[in-house]
């Protein structure tokens, strides 16, 4: 857990429910001058999930749980770590908590770099690390009739 510094603009947000189209990252004039690549990744909820028996079953959506403030802290820590590694200009991370219906998006990652390769590497490695280290859980809300007897 080394202490890292970066010149990158890093923003992390957790939002209740689905995330609409992300607001573009605002850049300063000096950042714009060197910003050659802007990449956005949106993770969206598909209409089926694999259940415990490895069968694909229809879902209504996913319920996301977080553990604040650890979730925000880990997202921020990883954003700074990989922004430093790849010389990123700015990064914006937004993740949902609560229910996200299928067809909607639960995760938006935006990154601005000088060149394409750093942007691609940042997105790839950040998401890998997020899936290993950031306390975010999803629970499917299955699409079949739930008995309300």
């Amino acid at each position, binding site marked *: *857990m080394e202490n890292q510094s970066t010149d990158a603009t890093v923003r992390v947000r957790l939002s209740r429910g689905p995330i609409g189209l992300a607001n573009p990252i605002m850049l300063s004039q000096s950042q714009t001058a060197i910003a050659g690549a802007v990449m956005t990744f949106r*993770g969206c909820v598909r209409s089926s999930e694999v259940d415990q028996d490895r069968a694909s079953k229809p879902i209504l959506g996913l319920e996301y*749980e977080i*553990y604040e*403030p*650890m979730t925000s*802290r880990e997202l921020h820590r990883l954003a700074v770590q990989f922004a430093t590694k790849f010389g990123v200009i700015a990064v914006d991370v937004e*993740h949902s908590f609560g229910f996200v219906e299928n067809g909607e998006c*639960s*995760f938006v990652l935006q990154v601005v770099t000088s060149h394409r390769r750093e942007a691609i590497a940042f997105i790839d490695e950040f*998401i890998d690390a*997020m*899936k*290993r*280290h*950031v*306390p*975010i*859980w*999803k*629970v499917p809300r299955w699409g079949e009739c739930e008995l309300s007897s």
Partner: protein
Amino acid sequence: MRSTSTNNEIIGELQVLVFGPQARTVGTDRMKLGKTKFPITADALMSRIVETYPNLSSSIGVSRLAVNHEFVESNSLINAQDEVALVGLISGG
């Protein structure tokens, strides 16, 4: 957290937060481990969790403990006043 102290040794109930699919598995978001001797290592606590909640045995291997919102190593010591969370089966994105 209720605890009793004897000769510098604290014994008490430890609550461990649990989330997502694991919380569904154990039927609670707050596991209770009675008569825990503090301090306890993360490793020893993991063993006690599985003993008490055997349904977690299939997922404990991919789980880590967070103490006061930071991941800890297996030999880290956990004290009675710490906030402890089981972080397993995570799937952000």
